[in-house]
């Protein structure tokens, strides 16, 4: 079980429940007499002597409410325990037994759960009659299916883990398996369910008494008090208020304990939300005017920052010329996707982009009010995972034509025709049928081609392709890459192509920008990359770690299709593959100097560790600069 992280609601709720439990213990000793003494006036309004007034027999309502705490809590605890024990046993036994019993048992539990627990309790109460014991049995057994299902579900997920399989193979008997391996692992969620069940049981038990089929006079619990209070609603409303407040407060506190426990046990709620404070201002460097004036996309000194000011992307500048495919390459976490998503204005929530200049031709992408129509029609996006990027509930055709219909005023019939055309262009067979299908009916490769069709349909000027082949089979990868190149050459659409695979980048792109730890380290032509004319030690290391390109290099680097798509089969190993030792620094721990210094084979003492290498002659490296022009 994970360690419980205490949080305020949990502490408050537990304290409250503790006080109520204490009240349950002491109240009968203190106020029993007062609660049963027949007073003077019946159904009197609240007064100094009787804070909540009196009931039909002139007894003090407040005292009765307090005294009833004990019976109510005893019954609730007993019924909760019964539900938990019976349910967990049922659930675990179902799981540990053979497959047939298990499947039948799980179905039975499902049916029992879908049946309203209160009606189930009424059935049991019919058989057992009225009174506290019968109520506890009825509500306890009625609550058992929920525990059975949780236990069976949790046991299922735990039982499939390796250590349980191993224990089973080693001949550990089921009872021991249960006690030693299953129960400890499901105790966390069980605890949450226990507190939720406590609240439900309290409400249900009080409900039975309220209906008059639970606790009978002369015994009384909160439900029974509420029942007589309802009759007195016109004469002394306070009589109903006392038990109503008692039930609600106790139930709510138990519910909050459940919520608090769930939060405390959930590893995902690490307090990221709590940490978010006011956004510190992000300072952006001045315009560099490095990009040519006729560039289609200009990114100048882009910073992408977390709410706390940590820079994930730091002073990145790049540009895409009309008709050009610009490759953006780097390890995961290098900031390449964030850079591309800043251009597409699709950063995840919480991240903010700041730049000296961020523009698509004359469209400024830095402001907050950018014409949605221009964004939608001028930038097409191809996402990484085509199976997750299509909406599973909508047909392919509608998703393809949505931009046309929403932003370009194309009517349904015509839009469908254009979708069919676009699907033909991306070489999908039987496009007229595909538009009427749901995404799950297409294969992965078809979905990515449909995604490309969706991107080109509005006639964009730029296509942002974010790792478009990473999620695909190697056999399909080459086809998709060819398709993208084809679209670029026939339509002249510019592309920003992101990949961690330097081999893919080298074959598809015209020009390449290499990123490391949120910064640009080198910019070079694809021809130079293919020829191995990289200068930055990181780019060199990437090349050395990639088998295909060295191979393509010796084959003069033209046979692109085989070099990319085919993967390993075309590769003749000449030298052992290099690996880059170490890992990139986390965004918050990036050093003042060069981020690659720790892993760099040619690191210079002093300079690299302290001073950030400026971008000079398309490469940001102290060592390279000293080589070119010795000090």
């Amino acid at each position: 079980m994970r360690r419980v992280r205490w949080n305020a609601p949990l502490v408050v709720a537990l304290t409250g429940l503790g006080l109520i439990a204490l009240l349950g213990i002491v109240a009968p000793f203190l106020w029993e007499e007062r609660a049963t003494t027949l007073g003077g006036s019946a159904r009197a309004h609240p007064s100094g002597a009787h804070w909540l007034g009196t009931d039909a027999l002139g007894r003090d309502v407040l005292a009765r409410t307090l005294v009833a705490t004990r019976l109510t809590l005893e019954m609730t605890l007993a019924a909760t325990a019964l539900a938990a024990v019976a349910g967990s046993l049922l659930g675990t036994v179902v799981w540990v037994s053979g497959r047939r019993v298990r499947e039948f048992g799980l179905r039975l539990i499902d049916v029992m759960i879908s049946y309203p627990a209160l009606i189930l309790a009424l059935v049991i109460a019919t058989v057992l009659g009225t009174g506290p014991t019968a109520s506890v049995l009825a509500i306890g057994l009625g609550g058992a299916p929920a525990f059975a299902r949780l236990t069976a579900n949790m046991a299922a997920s735990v039982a499939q883990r390796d250590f349980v399989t191993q224990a089973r193979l080693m001949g550990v008997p089921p009872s021991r398996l249960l006690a030693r391996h299953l129960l400890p692992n499901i105790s966390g969620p069980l605890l949450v369910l226990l507190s939720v069940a406590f609240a439900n049981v309290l409400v249900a038990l009080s409900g039975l008494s309220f209906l008059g089929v639970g606790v009978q006079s002369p015994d009384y619990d909160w439900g029974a008090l509420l029942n007589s209070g309802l009759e007195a609603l016109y004469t002394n409303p306070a009589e109903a208020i006392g038990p109503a407040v008692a039930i609600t407060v106790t139930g709510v506190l138990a519910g909050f304990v459940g919520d608090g426990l769930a939060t405390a046990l959930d590893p995902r709620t690490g307090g990221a939300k709590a940490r978010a404070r006011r956004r510190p201002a992000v300072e952006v460097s001045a315009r560099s005017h490095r990009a040519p004036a006729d560039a289609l996309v200009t990114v100048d000194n882009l910073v992408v920052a977390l709410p706390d000011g940590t820079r994930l992307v730091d002073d990145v500048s790049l540009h895409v010329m009309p008709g050009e495919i610009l490759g953006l390459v780097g390890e995961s976490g290098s900031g390449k996707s964030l850079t591309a998503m800043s251009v597409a204005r699709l950063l995840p929530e919480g991240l903010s982009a700041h730049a000296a200049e961020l523009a698509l031709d004359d469209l400024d992408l830095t402001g907050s009010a950018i014409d949605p129509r221009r964004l939608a029609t001028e930038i097409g996006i191809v996402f990484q995972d085509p199976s997750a990027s299509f909406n599973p509930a909508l047909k392919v055709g509608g998703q393809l034509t949505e931009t046309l219909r929403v932003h370009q005023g194309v009517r349904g019939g015509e839009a469908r025709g254009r979708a069919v055309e676009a699907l033909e262009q991306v070489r999908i067979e039987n496009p007229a049928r595909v538009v009427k299908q749901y995404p799950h009916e297409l294969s992965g490769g078809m979905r990515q081609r449909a995604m490309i069709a969706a991107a080109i349909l509005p006639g964009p000027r730029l296509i942002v392709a974010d790792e478009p082949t990473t999620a695909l089979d190697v056999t399909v990868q080459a086809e998709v890459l060819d398709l993208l190149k084809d679209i670029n050459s026939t339509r002249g659409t510019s592309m920003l192509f992101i990949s961690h695979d330097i081999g893919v980048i080298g074959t598809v792109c015209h020009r390449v920008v290499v990123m490391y730890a949120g910064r640009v380290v080198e910019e070079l032509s694809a021809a130079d990359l293919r020829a191995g004319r990289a200068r930055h030690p990181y780019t060199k290391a990437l090349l050395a770690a990639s088998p295909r390109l060295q191979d393509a290099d010796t084959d003069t680097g033209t046979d692109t299709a085989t070099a990319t798509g085919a993967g390993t089969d075309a590769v003749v190993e000449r030298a052992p593959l290099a690996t880059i030792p170490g890992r990139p620094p986390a965004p918050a721990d990036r050093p003042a100097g060069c981020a690659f210094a720790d892993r760099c084979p040619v690191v210079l003492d002093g300079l690299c560790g302290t001073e950030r290498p400026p971008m000079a002659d398309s490469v940001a490296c102290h060592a390279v600069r000293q080589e070119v022009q010795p000090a």
Partner: protein
Amino acid sequence: MATTPTGMTAAGAGRTTALGPWGGFLLRRLVGLAAVAITLVVGTFLMVQLIPGDPARVVAGADATPADVERARHELGLDQPLSAQFGTYASGLLRGDLGTSFQTKEPVAEIIGSRLPFTAEIAFLSVLAVLLLAVPIGLAVAARGSRRTDGAFTFVTGLVGATPEYIIGTLLVLGFAIRLGWLPAAGAETVTSMVLPIAALVLPGTCVMARIVRSEAAHVLAQDYMRTARGRRLPPLRLYARHALPNLLTATLTLGGLILAGLLGGTVVVEAVFAWPGIGQRVVEALLVRDHTVIQGCVLVLGLLAALLNLLVDVVLALLDPRTLAGKGGH
């Protein structure tokens, strides 16, 4: 947790019978419904058998002679073997004969016939209202909620959602019927009589449901396809209603179907608070006088209603998410 089924490729979707996807789906569901119905019939029959005491003595009355008791036993068929009694019960059910009330001598089928419409009315309207309120609220909080609205939402839904229907009902009577005098406190004489019972069911139901919607919506909004949709720069209404809602409903109904069925249980209690002449109030009356045949019939009908509601949820799920058709079911 309800996650979207994955890995359903073209081959998986093709796993349909000669009946087509819908035929196979409905067949599986109807078989399931029949199994629940049979379980209910056997269950309600056994329930009466398990009741301690002698029903014949109850029917014959307190001052009956042993001969009277024997006559009653014979009339009730209680002198038959168990299997024969079950045969009589089951064949009676097939003819729509649910037996006769011990107490009032009315046919149980008639009692249910006169009571059921009242229950169905408030149950149906409540389910509708809960869905219409909880889904937009939960979605809005998930989509646009700040830390403050989030906290307020959690607190209010935690408070109201944990308050039982009978307490909310009592408070509503006190406030709106007694203090303000705007609405009737009990009975079913006018259309306005319906307002408070429905409110008592809808308030906590909406809170519980809105919490589920909120957490499911947070999950849906983080999906890749929502980023794709945002990439099309759609107006917010279209983004949430067209792209998030269908997926959200799939997940919500899978979990929330139970809550909707649970509303039937709440109806029983709420009817008692508001003296609403539905089946729930009748079954409580019968419980107090141990009128077994009436309890039997009411429990059977309520159970079937719950099963039908589940079936309805499954059909809606399948309409919303065609992948459900090919798979085993809604979970």
